[in-house]
């Protein structure tokens, strides 16, 4: 059963990666030019950034690329000793001192010196055509396999993997603790509410519904406004005090916990409600099963009867964990942004607002990976708690 699940998750990962590969290349026009246009609109795209864009779309270093927005000769960057521009894919001949090439917009543009590295007169400069899409795709997959997610346009042209590596541990820590807490608390309260139906604990139901309806974004803003800005109980954001040096002493760990508390409570609050309502509804159904009645009739202590029922009612919760975890992750990304918590959400916000496409896609792939691994863990737990699942298929 687990092997089938692993195969399925690999397929899901492949689909996600494929979407993220082909989507930018489906945009009408030249992907490099359109990407450069968007990127440059936000800020200066340095030569390193241009190179990153070219590299991403498989255009080699000896290609001259139109730098937007102004389609003038001066806007060409020439690297590696050749000039040429192309949408047509036809070779261009470089004349004495000038070269006429067709720009990505279809205009004909004359390149003149002082281009540092104009090729010798008479040589034919062929466009460094990008390899076919399919070849690129497999190169991309191969790169992914080696942990290569490309280079960030900004952020000092760091490899995306390095950037994600510095932000991911914060997210995983927060996500792990908060999800486990939310699951345990939500499930536990759900059991109690179902058991004492019609009792005083029923007021939790509208409460949970409300928390489920509040978007995590707004909830975290309210938390900041109340507990950090107004009451000054907890810090408004960040992962630790700027004055603290990261080290493993008590003071620093205290600062870490201090800063993690509010975001963690927020994540627990909005994700707990779903677990609770689901568990309560399932528990109500399970309580009517015959085996619960038998357990009760045999005179087992109430606590044990609840445990028998709860164990069985919990199965759908675990089975549906994949849906829950997607929502929790989505919510947590937004929580991190509001709290300036240096996790993947914060990085994603920077990447999205700065149009740092390789970073956006790298983060997408990594989040998908994290979610799928979490799903796999939930599956493994499911097989442990329900032996029937292991025997199927």
């Amino acid at each position, binding site marked *: 059963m687990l092997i089938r699940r692993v195969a399925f998750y690999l397929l899901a990962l492949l689909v996600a990666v494929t979407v993220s590969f082909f989507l930018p290349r489906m945009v009408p026009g030249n992907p490099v030019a359109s990407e450069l246009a968007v990127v440059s609109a936000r800020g200066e795209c340095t030569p390193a950034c241009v190179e990153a864009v070219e590299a991403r779309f498989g255009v080699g270093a000896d290609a001259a690329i139109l730098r937007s927005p102004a389609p003038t000769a001066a806007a060409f960057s020439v690297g590696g000793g050749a000039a040429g521009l192309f949408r047509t894919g036809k070779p261009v001949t470089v004349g004495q001192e000038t070269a006429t090439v067709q720009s990505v917009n279809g205009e004909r543009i004359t390149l003149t010196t002082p281009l540092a590295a104009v090729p010798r007169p008479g040589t034919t400069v062929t466009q460094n055509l990008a390899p076919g899409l399919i070849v690129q795709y497999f190169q991309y997959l191969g790169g992914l396999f080696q942990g290569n997610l490309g280079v960030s346009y900004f952020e000092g042209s760091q490899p995306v993997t390095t950037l994600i590596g510095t932000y991911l541990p914060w997210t995983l820590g927060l996500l792990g603790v908060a999800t486990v807490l939310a699951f345990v608390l939500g499930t536990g309260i759900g059991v109690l509410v179902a058991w004492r139906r019609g009792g005083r604990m029923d007021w939790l139901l509208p409460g949970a519904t409300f928390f489920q309806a509040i978007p995590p974004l707004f909830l975290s803003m309210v938390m900041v406004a109340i507990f950090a800005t107004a009451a000054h109980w907890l810090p408004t954001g960040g992962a630790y005090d700027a004055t603290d040096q990261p080290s493993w002493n008590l003071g620093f760990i205290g600062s870490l916990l201090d800063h993690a508390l509010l975001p963690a409570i927020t994540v627990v609050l909005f994700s707990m409600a779903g677990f609770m309502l689901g568990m309560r509804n399932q528990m109500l159904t399970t309580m009517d099963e015959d085996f619960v009645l038998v357990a009760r009739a045999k005179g087992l202590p109430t606590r044990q009867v609840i445990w028998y029922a709860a164990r069985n009612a919990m199965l759908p919760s675990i089975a549906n964990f994949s849906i829950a975890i997607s929502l929790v*992750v989505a919510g947590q990304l937004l929580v991190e942004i509001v709290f300036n918590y240096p996790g993947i959400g914060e990085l994603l916000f920077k990447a999205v607002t700065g149009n740092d496409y390789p970073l956006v896609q790298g983060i997408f792939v990594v989040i998908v990976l994290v979610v799928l691994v979490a799903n796999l863990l939930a599956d493994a737990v499911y097989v442990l708690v329900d032996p029937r699942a292991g025997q199927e298929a």
Partner: protein
Amino acid sequence: MSPEIAPLATVTGGGPDPVAVPPRSRAVVLPRSPRIWVGVGIMVFFIIFAIVGPFIRPYNPNYIDKAWVSVTCSTGPGTCIGQTKDGVAGTTVPLVQPYGPSGAHPLGTTVLGSDVWSQLLSSTGPTLIVAFLAALIATLLSVVVGVSAGYLGGNADEGLSLFSNVFLAIPGLPLLIVLASYVPGADTSAVVVGLIVALTGWAYGARVLRAQTLSLRNRDFVEAARVSGEGRLRIILVEVVPNLLPIIASSFLFTTLYAIGAYIALAFLGLAGAPNASPAGPWNWGIMIQQAYTQSAINSGWWWWWVPPGIAIALVGTALALMNFGIDEFVNPRLRAAGLTRRAARQAGISVRPTLGFTEVVRRGEAPAAAAAAVPAGGGGPS
């Protein structure tokens, strides 16, 4: 499931005899739970709000008070008169603090002097349109995929289930972000955003609908239709889908809730366009929250700027959840009994003590005696 087995006598006449159906059976068709009506009430309120909003707004939501536009501090703190933050040399700070709620501005103003109430009025429509549009498309998709998977079975089922499970496993928001950053028009058109949101939100509904279709497929009435030679499409449309209506409705509400959250998140990330950018995108609650957030309204205590859209989202979300609750109780009678308060339960004549093995099915609108006698209320579901 909803369809109660109608008494034989009402069926044999070639259709239900209107006289034979007791009038109180309508009570089951229209749930009377106060929850659902509170939900419907809130929803109707917001829909009216969205329709009249653009006509009753007192100011142009894009209006910027020129005198309020930021100034650049030349020297250190204290040189920008009326500023709200410590002026660091060279940084741009807001010139004045936004107005709090007052008679002229019921919800105060933004830091640029725009009227928050007018922004809220202009934002409701686009937000709801995107949400409902996305939910409509997603629900259609999930019905098509889920019902065909469940009804056709075999390889078609395998393929379609795999397809929806893959979509379910890929986390929605990140996929949404990748889609929205590339699909042209996502920043100006509510329709495009709605489409993208729908694309990421249909899979759960498809899964639920498939499961339910599987259980319906071999019921007697479907078998009967098959034996009597009805076409496959007709069976699906006339026999199966009507019995799925409560679940489809629930899935629609659930998706609407998801779509609002997704749209807000996209707008917050700056992917759904801005009304004061060119080309201009529509106003929505997410963009209001984003503008407040980026102008640090939260840490500055300007709550009137970001709380109203937040409350609006929470209220619409609660309304959807309440309506969903009503449908859940309608579909699963056990939840109906469990959701009662003690007093209401006593009135309905059932015990809510934690009795095991038996949860009474409450039929509102009937005398307790009738409920106890478990008279089948005919016409429980359209079948």
